[in-house]
Each structure stands twice: as C-alpha cells, then as structure tokens.
C-alpha cells in the first residue's frame, strides 16, 4: 500500500550494509572494470569460473541424502538419479559415522541412521552404490570431515572392487575439519592433528593426480551458525589458506593441489548479498593465490547449498518459494555445483516428494526461464557492482584481522571465529523478534494452525539391523590382520606419516570406522566440550 514517505527509516542488507534509493554511474566510478570485474573464465574470475558459464551445462543438481543403512540410502539415490538429478550421489552420514563411532557404541545408540546413512565397514559403503555406475553418476560427495581418510579408503576400495579406474569418476570430500570447531561440531581430535589428517588426503590425491576435489572448504555451516555473507566468505578463505600453508610446510608446491580445492557456501534469502558474495569469493581467492603464492589461472570451483536455515516449520509450503529464490541467487552467482534444500527440512529430513519438488525447481529455472543463457547477467548492474566491491573490501579486512591473529587455526582455537558467529546469530534473532527482520508465517502473516505436510519417519529397526550386520561382519573377518593393520594406523599417527595408505589397508582387511578412529584417539587424545557460564 502507498504511504507518505519510505517504509523504513533506513534500508540495509541482511548484514547491516546501507542500501541507497538508487545506484548510478557515480556509484561505480572508482571501480576498474578491467582489473576488478574482468571477463568470465579469466582472473580475477569475478564474472565466473568459466568463459561459457551455463551454456556448456547447467549447475549440478545435487540432493544431499542419507538415512538408515547403505541399502536404505541407495534406494533414495537411485530414485533421484531416475528423476534426473545430475549432481551425483551426495552422502549425508549419520552422526555416529561422522564422529567415528560404530553403531554398537553406547553413544551411538539413538543416532544410528537417523540424520544420515550409517557406514561402519567397507561392506556398508559398498551397499550405498548398488546398481549405480560410478563413472556416469556425476560427483560423489560426502560430508566426511574428521573421518575423511576413512571415506577416501571406502570409496577407493568400492571402485577397485568394481574394476572402475579411480580417475574415471568424480569424488568430492568435504574434508574440512576446521569449520567443525567453529560451527558444525563433528570434530573428533584436537584441531592440529585433524588438519594434518585432512592434508594427508589432499596430498595423496595430488600425488596420484586424481581428478577429484579432496577438500571442499566450507563456509555454509559458519553462515548457518550466524556469519554474515562477508564473514562466511572471509572465514572460509582463511581456513582454505590454513590447509594451503600446512601442505606447503610439507614441501608440496601450491600449484600441485590448489586447483583441486573446492569452496563451499550457503545461500540464504538476501538475494543481492548472496549474488555479490559468489562474485567476491572468486575474486578474493584469485587475488590471494597470486599475492601469496604467485599462482595464477586457477578458476575457483564454487559449490553452494540453497540453505535450510531460512526455511520455517510454520506454513512449510512457503519454503518452496524461499528455495526458488535461493536457487536463482546460485544461478546469478555462477556456482558450479548446487545442493538444494527441501520444503520440509524444518520438520525432519526430507520426504521423497519434497526432494523431487526441489529437483523440479532447479529444472524449471534451468530450462524455462532463460536465466542460464548468458554469463553473469547481473554484471554491470550499478548496485551489484557497488555491493561486490564493498563486500570485497570487507572480506579483505576480515582476512587481515585473521592474519593478525596468526591465521585461521589460532583464530579458531582462541574462540574468535565462534564468538563472531554467536554475535551474528544473536543479532539475527533479536531482529526477528523485534519485527525488523520479517519472516512470513513466523513474525508476520501468522496463522493459528500450520498446514500439515507429510513428514519423513525414521525406522527404529535400522539401528538393531545395523548392529546385527556389524556383529556378523566382525565374526567373518581375520581379527589378527585387523589388529596388525590398526597397529600401522597407530604408528603412522605417532610418527606423523600419512594416514592414507595404512587406513586403506585397515579398511580393506575389515577394520571398522570406530576402530580406526579409536587408534587416532589413543595417539592424539580427544576433543572435549567446554562449559560456558554467563558473566
């Protein structure tokens, strides 16, 4: 409705950046088009990683999924492939697996197969890929972080068993333990040994010349824990630099592995900030690699997730619209691989119907709207270019602060990063409660009863079935060979040798994830939660 004067005293983006009434040529007069914006597929990659963008193929349509056993999850993966998902097999792991606990561990009791698939053994991993052709399925992805060397072993051995050459398929491992301590919380070991394990995986894939992304440095969880777009970008790039520095300290030249490092972010509702963020990330990563290591010509690979964070439990069908806008921001941001949340994710893990609708959302945007036919269609917008430049400067400034703290590892160990995220989360909550941040169905346009939508059910029988499978597996294997192999895992951890080969051998002879992670825990100790008190 029209009213006298503006709707608000001050217009800002979600991170508090002032937005002017209108932008014009004077707002971009200080931006050098050639060096700051450039051409798609060329440094500084502001306009995109490749020259042709989506003309050579759409972004990968990826759906993160997993529950129950390998066979249960396999049914969902096959369903998605049948429906036209191009983003491969994106494996959500249950919490015990992510934390290196077997299904029969007391702490795993209630969590087996609940928020992801349970994998304890090579047999479990193999079941995930039943009837799936590794070579043609697209990217195989997993949020293996603290356990990445074990996931690398599982996938490599599954491929070997099937006679598939390792360079004939695509694998992306999240393998980014640093953000676990700041935001996501599935760390097993103290920070530094965890970073070394992650770097073992990156170094191994580089040595073998595998066409994989053995690390996907992730801002998305920090964003969901409260980071602004600029903080998400800056802390992610700071973490990426920490892995680069760790690998350099091993004497591995940066250009040997850096083009195999993926960057992963999440997209929320502030459309223009999100679009600008993806342009900024490419530019800043390109600048950092050139300034610090003299490496040029590395096109950043951006993996994004249409975030579940803005999705509401209230009026859940509204989330379809939110997801549509997030996917559109991915397209204008030029991401290469994109995972999409589902409308029922504030209620439970998604149903088959919900995930199909998210896939169709991508397909409609890709095929029907024409938005993917020209590269970086918002490039040159006075507003978007101003926002890109301002966010770039903010990201560089946050990176300088992290540098002053000694880099990402000290910044995380000291609690600096987690503290900034908590501040952001609290500010966002306050803004929602005051009504300054409108969330439809939550603080405006509220309805007394929400629409009932079908909700996915976990099966209580999964955990018992997994424990039985595990017990039978332990009976069948050569216990002495497993012991010897675990001793080698332990020795590698003690001496600082790469974990990759001993872990693969342990997995091959039948060691479980819990046994391998126990070997690491024995050597390095275990991460401990700390209690916080109000002042």
């Amino acid at each position: 409705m029209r009213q006298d004067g503006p709707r608000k005293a001050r217009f800002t983006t979600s991170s508090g950046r002032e937005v002017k009434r209108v932008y014009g040529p004077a707002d971009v007069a200080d931006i050098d088009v050639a060096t700051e914006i450039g051409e798609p597929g060329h440094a500084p990659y502001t306009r995109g990683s490749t020259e042709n963008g989506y003309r050579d193929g759409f972004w990968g349509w990826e759906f993160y999924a997993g529950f129950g056993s390998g066979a249960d999850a396999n049914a969902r993966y096959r369903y998605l492939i049948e429906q036209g998902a191009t983003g491969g097999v994106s494996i959500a792991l249950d919490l015990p697996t992510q934390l290196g606990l077997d299904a029969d561990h007391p702490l795993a009791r209630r969590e087996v197969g609940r928020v992801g698939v349970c994998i304890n053994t090579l047999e479990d991993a193999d079941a995930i890929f039943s009837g799936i052709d590794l070579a043609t399925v697209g990217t195989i992805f997993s949020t293996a972080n603290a356990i990445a060397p074990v996931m690398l072993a599982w996938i490599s051995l599954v491929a070997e068993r099937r006679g598939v050459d390792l360079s004939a398929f695509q694998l992306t491992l999240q393998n980014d333990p640093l953000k676990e301590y700041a935001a996501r919380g599935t760390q097993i070991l103290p920070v530094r040994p965890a970073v070394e394990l992650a770097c073992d995986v990156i170094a191994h894939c580089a040595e073998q010349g595998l066409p994989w992304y053995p690390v996907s440095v992730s801002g998305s969880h920090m964003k969901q824990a409260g980071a602004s777009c600029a903080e998400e970008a800056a802390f992610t790039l700071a973490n990426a630099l920490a892995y680069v520095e760790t690998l350099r300290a091993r004497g591995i030249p940066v250009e040997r592995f850096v083009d195999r490092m993926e960057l992963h972010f999440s997209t929320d509702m502030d459309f223009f900030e999100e679009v600008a963020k993806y342009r900024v990330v490419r530019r800043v990563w390109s600048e950092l690699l050139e300034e610090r290591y003299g490496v040029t010509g590395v096109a950043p690979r951006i993996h994004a997730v249409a975030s579940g964070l803005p999705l509401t439990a209230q009026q859940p069908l509204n989330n379809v619209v939110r997801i549509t806008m997030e996917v559109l921001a991915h397209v204008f941001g030029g991401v290469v691989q994109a995972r999409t949340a589902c409308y029922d994710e504030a209620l439970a893990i998604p149903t088959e119907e919900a995930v199909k609708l998210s896939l169709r959302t991508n397909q409609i945007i890709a095929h029907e709207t024409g938005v993917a036919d020209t590269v970086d269609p918002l490039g040159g917008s006075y507003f978007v270019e101003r926002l890109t430049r301002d966010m770039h400067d903010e990201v560089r400034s946050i990176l300088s602060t992290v540098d002053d703290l000694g880099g990402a590892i000290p910044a995380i160990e000291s609690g600096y990063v987690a503290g900034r995220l908590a501040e952001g989360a609290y500010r966002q909550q306050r803004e929602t409660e005051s009504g300054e941040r409108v969330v439809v169905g939550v603080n405006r346009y509220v309805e007394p009863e929400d629409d009932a939508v079908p909700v996915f059910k976990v099966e209580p029988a999964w955990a018992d079935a997994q424990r039985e499978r595990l017990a039978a597996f332990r009976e069948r294997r050569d216990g002495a060979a497993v012991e010897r192999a675990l001793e080698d895992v332990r020795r590698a951890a003690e001496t600082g040798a790469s974990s990759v080969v001993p872990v693969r051998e342990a997995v091959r002879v039948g060691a479980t994830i819990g046994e391998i992670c126990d070997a690491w825990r024995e050597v390095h100790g275990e991460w401990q939660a700390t209690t916080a008190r109000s002042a």
Partner: protein
Amino acid sequence: MAGDDGEVGMSEHEALRVLVAKPGLDGHDRGAQVIARALTDAGMEVIYTGIRQTPEMIVAAAIEEDVDCVGLSMLSGGHVEHTREVVDGLRAAGAEDIRVFIGGIIPREDVPELEAMGVAGIFGPGSSIEEIVASIRGTPAPR
C-alpha cells in the same frame, strides 16, 4: 555431585539459575547459544554445557550447579528418549523440582508424550525469546 537430602536443586539465589544443555551427538548449537545468551540478558544465571552431553552428564551438572531449570536443545531426533532420561534421572536423584524445558525440532505428535513426562515447556522453530523467558519465569518458585 551434591548430596541427596531434600535441599537438592532448591535455589538460594535471587536470579534463576538455568542449565542449557545439548544432549546427543549433534553439534549444531546455534539455538542453544542464542538461548543461553538471551536468558543471560534477561537476568538469569546460565551455564551452557557445550555439545555432546549424555543425559547422565546433564543430570549431574544440574545438581552440581544447583539450577532451577534445565533447557535441552535437540535437533537430530532423539528428543523423546533424551528428555525421558533427564527427567527420570533428576527424579531418581531427588531433584524433581528442577524443571525441564526443551527446544529444537520437536514434531507435534511427540508433544503429548513429552508433556506427560512433566516437561514444563516445549519450544519449536520460530519460538520467541520473550515467550521462553516468560515461560521460565512463570515457573512457580521452587520454595
């Protein structure tokens, strides 16, 4: 751990003392941290356990810290069992006067069972700090 006499769990403090805890293996504690901060700003004394707590650890901490109430934050689906164990554990320790509040992803169909356990408040996504604070303050004084 505190003694097992009738005084256990009775607050002698002016400000309400609250233990915010995250049972289970899930590490997403944005909600728990926001609540801990908000209750602090509302004048309560808050102890946040950090992630990955067992019900036994939470009961022990609640008694040792002599809190008036416990808030459990749960997103990954174990809320019914975790809550039952905390409520039963407090009762077994003679600390049934410590009220239990829960928040997170709590499907509607589980609410009757949780209420039957004696849970004092259930807060799903979109709950406001204001209503959570009011609910905790509305708890009859333990004395």
